[in-house]
């Protein structure tokens, strides 16, 4: 996975193991390595609706695009981040590519990132190069963000689901991916005979 900023030179990705995103985002938040754009998304129109959950302080939107190459299709994902607050955030982006069995195909890539002013937005590109075998894949993009004075970043994440079929990339919805792939099939990762370390029952 290659992560690069929009209209900026390619960042050298930092490669780390799985599940290191939060810790790494804490440690690697950089400063102003991506120029924030001045665009702002249009706010939604108020409308009567059912009760819902409030949005996060940083909105993350992924826009995937399939681009043919000589080695087969390449997947480029534009990572659009929008700061819904007045505070300036430091951000960092982590990406992971896994298949429907939970196997990691490319090491987690972390980009210490961008400074995102309040009520502003920024974009980065993530590139999944050609060369994957046929199968079902999930690209997870995690963005950590924090105000300068905060020690621990909050994170938001989103996935792009796709299938690879004879060098073609077929984008899929999350639901279709779960239904069609092997993600809901048997795939035990460990057997621990006799293990009974459960959760204590408690009373309130």
């Amino acid at each position, binding site marked *: 996975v290659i992560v690069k900023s929009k209209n900026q030179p390619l960042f050298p990705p930092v490669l780390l193991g799985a599940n290191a995103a939060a810790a790494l985002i804490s440690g690697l938040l950089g400063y102003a390595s991506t120029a924030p754009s001045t665009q702002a998304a249009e706010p939604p129109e108020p409308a*009567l609706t059912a009760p819902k*959950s409030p949005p996060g302080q940083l909105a993350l939107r992924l826009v995937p695009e399939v681009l043919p190459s000589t080695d087969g299709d390449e997947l480029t994902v534009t990572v659009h981040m929008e700061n819904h607050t007045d505070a300036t955030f430091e951000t960092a982006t982590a990406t992971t590519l896994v298949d429907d069995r939970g196997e990691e195909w490319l090491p987690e890539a972390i980009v210490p990132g961008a400074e995102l002013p309040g009520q502003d937005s920024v974009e980065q590109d993530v590139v999944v190069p050609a060369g994957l075998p046929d199968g079902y894949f999930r690209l997870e993009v995690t963005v950590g963000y924090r105000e300068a004075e905060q020690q*621990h970043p909050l994170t938001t994440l989103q996935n792009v689901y796709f299938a690879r079929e004879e060098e073609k990339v077929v984008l899929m919805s999350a639901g279709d991916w779960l239904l069609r792939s092997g993600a809901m099939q048997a795939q035990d*990762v*460990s057997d621990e005979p006799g293990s009974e370390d459960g959760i204590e029952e408690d009373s309130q």
Partner: protein
Amino acid sequence: MMLSRLLLGSAGRAHRWMQFAVFLTVLGMVPKVAHAVTGAINGGQRVMSSQGNYCDTTLGMDCTAARFPANQGVGNAVPLKRIRVEVWREDANGARLGTQPIGVSYTSLTGAYTVTWSYTSTPSKVRLDFVYCHQDDRFCVKSETGAQWYNTMRSGITPVANSTVALGYSTWNNAAVGNVYDAASRVWEEAFRYSAYLLPVFNAVTIKYPDSSQAPGDAITTGATKTILMADNCSAMPMNCVAHEFGHMGMYLLAPFTFCGAYSANFQVTSTENFCVAFEEGMAQFLAQVSFYWLQAPAPRYCISASACGPAGGWSLETSSGTTCSASAPRKSMITSARYAWDAYDQIDDGWGDSVQQSYDAMLAGVAAWPTGTSNTLAVRDEPWNSPYTLVDDADGRSALDYKAYLDNGISTTTQYNNNCAPGGD
């Protein structure tokens, strides 16, 4: 007299059965009794957690009375609690055989299960399907189209008649649906099941996950159909997705109402809304928050994040703005209503005479007691609406102040109300 009559009756029935058997034998129809073969399978099932919002002392968080500690959050194996387990006969390709399972049971709170199967003969192979439905039919996780999700956690099992096959514990490493189920079961086990008011009404709730109509991180509740639509990444953000929406659902099922629902264009936790929105969102988060922190918690943090909130991330429900409202906690914001509810419930004295502690059930009793109606002068649950329900004519008419009228049943929460910026309307 009674005993002799019973004996006589019993003997009479035996006599008639003998006559019937002789009759059948004469006809060459010897009655046969079908003997089912039985056996059992036991084990335990976990999923690898992908969920944030746990409390982590290593980050400097005060996790006193926290109910979701770091060792149950992302990267840890957690039990699938009280989930339906089905035994199915299986063909050589691992596909289900037959139209119904040959055994059904449920896991315990530790994820342990023992399923007894019964069939006309010993199947050559069986599989275990974990169906994402709670034992007491509290909730199920289904697809966007309403199809029931299940995971085939174990396959190719060779059953043994009159014996128990022990599989041990296993962990499922790639379970988005499993994490949504886990979040839901946490809310139920840590909070909702303690309420005598929620027990009879909170059932048959459907979570549709992942739902493509929801933007990332979004979820929405329709009380009348008991349905929650949830975005794909909600499997990582339990506090603001499953738990918050369960809060909305609980509010509706306790006292069904017509939501006024006009959010501001920039709806946020701290944005100024009408009181109807601010109160509904705040109470939903309060009900949710209790599944993460109990009443003794000095720092019950709420954040919209796929990781831990950290000691300063998001918002503390224990931070009161006092009698003067602040820009970071406006009077008509959801955080202010949530903080009022938390102060009415919790055991921590904030130093301004915060001595009241209402039980969780009492908090819900206040909701359940809310009368129906649309009157603009009485504290009724549909006060925002005109009487034919065609127009919201008083969007501030449903608020924490109306709720307080029923919560304060012999115990006043006026101090808590006033010290949280008095989050009530007319």
